[in-house]
């Protein structure tokens, strides 16, 4: 075997092993994923929390407070806010669902039943069949609604079961620098500076993006609550329902262009369920409130708090949100834009690095 053939053979062998190991790695990941899915989910939530809380902890540390204490204080504050919000919102949701159940039972369903019965009586001359059908439909409807109430009641126990998340978050924030260091430790020398540079830049931009989005969502939520308080229409349990609608509006706002529309839906639904005499005017006021919140957000809040590094074309947003929805439903839609943003920032920095570093 001549020298050239030997080198080629060795290269092919190396390539084969690399491809084989990658395929093996992917296969192992696919096999073990169902077993570690909950751990991965907890880790992702903890990582998001760590990214959000780290600037606060860094600020406290810069004022001379010990890092461990700063993390504990920040996490206690956040935990307090979460518990307070949940205790505020849950009764409202339960009462809304219960009132929906009773309203459906009393007014709308009775009307609908009557119409269906008349329809069957006229067309099939069989009122008994109609009564059977409507009672079955009512039964299913009520079962669904009572299940919804049960679901919201069980949110508390779900939260208790994820008590492990704060534990992971604590150590992620405390030892974030050591984690970063060990992540780059095994990178070959040739790619070390390039990788470290890209890693730092991507980390910084992604962190800023997530913090910006969270701040924006929080402000939009608050503005929505304030707006609903100002118009103060038709809500049975105002504070609780306003906070719930504000939370949905804030979270939905994470999806550009489509989110604000989705965010307005709960408020409109609650208004429709309440079915006041002046429903048309109430709906118009709610729409005006949401439009105003969006104008304030797009003109003042968003330009100040959200990083411009992940600006996306509206068409891109729509496409990725649809793809996200197809992959993982509502959660997929929510995470589609941030994940695309992270991929965009990473690709930009990798291309910059490959252009600027001499790797030969």
């Amino acid at each position: 075997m001549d020298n050239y053939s030997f080198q080629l053979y060795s290269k092919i062998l190396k390539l084969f092993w690399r491809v084989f190991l990658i395929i093996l790695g992917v296969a192992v990941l696919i096999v073990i994923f169902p077993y570690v899915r909950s751990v991965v989910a907890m880790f992702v939530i903890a990582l998001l929390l760590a990214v959000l809380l780290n600037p606060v902890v860094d600020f406290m540390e810069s004022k001379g407070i010990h890092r461990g204490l700063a993390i504990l204080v920040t996490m206690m504050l956040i935990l307090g806010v979460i518990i307070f919000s949940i205790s505020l919102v849950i009764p409202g949701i339960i009462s809304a669902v219960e009132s929906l159940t009773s309203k459906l039972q009393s007014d709308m369903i009775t009307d609908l039943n009557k119409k269906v019965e008349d329809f069957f009586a006229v067309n099939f001359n069989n009122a008994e069949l109609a009564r059977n059908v409507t009672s079955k439909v009512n039964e299913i409807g009520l079962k669904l609604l009572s299940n919804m109430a049960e679901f919201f009641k069980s949110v508390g126990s779900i939260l208790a079961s994820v008590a492990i998340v704060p534990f992971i978050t604590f150590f992620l924030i405390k030892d974030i620098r050591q984690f970063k260091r060990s992540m780059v430790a095994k990178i070959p020398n040739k790619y070390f500076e390039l990788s470290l540079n890209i890693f730092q830049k991507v980390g910084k931009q992604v962190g800023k993006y997530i913090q910006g989005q969270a701040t924006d969502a929080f402000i939009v939520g608050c503005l929505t609550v304030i707006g609903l308080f100002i118009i103060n229409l038709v809500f049975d349990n105002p504070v609780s329902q306003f906070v719930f609608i504000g939370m949905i509006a804030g979270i939905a706002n994470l999806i550009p262009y489509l989110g604000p529309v989705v965010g307005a839906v709960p408020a409109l639904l609650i208004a429709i369920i309440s079915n006041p005499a002046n429903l048309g005017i109430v709906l118009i006021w709610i729409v005006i409130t949401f439009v105003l919140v969006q104008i304030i957000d797009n003109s003042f809040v968003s330009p100040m708090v959200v990083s411009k590094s992940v600006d996306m074309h509206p068409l891109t947003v729509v496409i990725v949100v649809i793809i996200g929805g197809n992959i993982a439903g509502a959660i997929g839609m929510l995470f589609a834009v941030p994940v695309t943003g992270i991929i965009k920032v990473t690709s930009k920095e990798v291309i910059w690095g490959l252009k600027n570093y001499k790797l030969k």
Partner: protein
Amino acid sequence: MKNPIWAVVEFRKSRTKDDIFNVLKNVPIFSDLSKKELDEVEKIIHRREFKKGEPIFRMGDPGLGMYIIINGAVNIVEENENGESTTLAVLKDGAFFGDLALLDEAPRSASGIADDNCDILGFFRPDFMDLLYRKPKLGIKILIALSKIIGERLRRTNEQLTQLQKK
């Protein structure tokens, strides 16, 4: 009784840390720092091993930070457009280089190539900036020491320039 395996791991860890402390203490940028402050620096530095002939960084690469030689030797080399290289300096144990990159991302003015198998510490700008924000007192100490070194170099350069102009 302590598990002998953990005892060995702990011994190695403490010895490595001591090695790093001793090296850092002799670098002018860190020489004024207390043990506690050096401990903070130790948390953010990267330890790397380079084989003989391996580049640590290349001329023209964006600057990312400084390196300190624990043991081994590094050639600081300038390369021209034709690929010919001139050795500007050979640095040995305890020496540091690339410190200007702690201040900005300007391209490296020369390459650093391992002249021997080297054990090296890397201290990088993003970590330094982060330290400066989190621990301002410590960050300022390092920044002042760095300014003194750069000032000293500028003074020497000025002197040499003046001498050359006189000739």
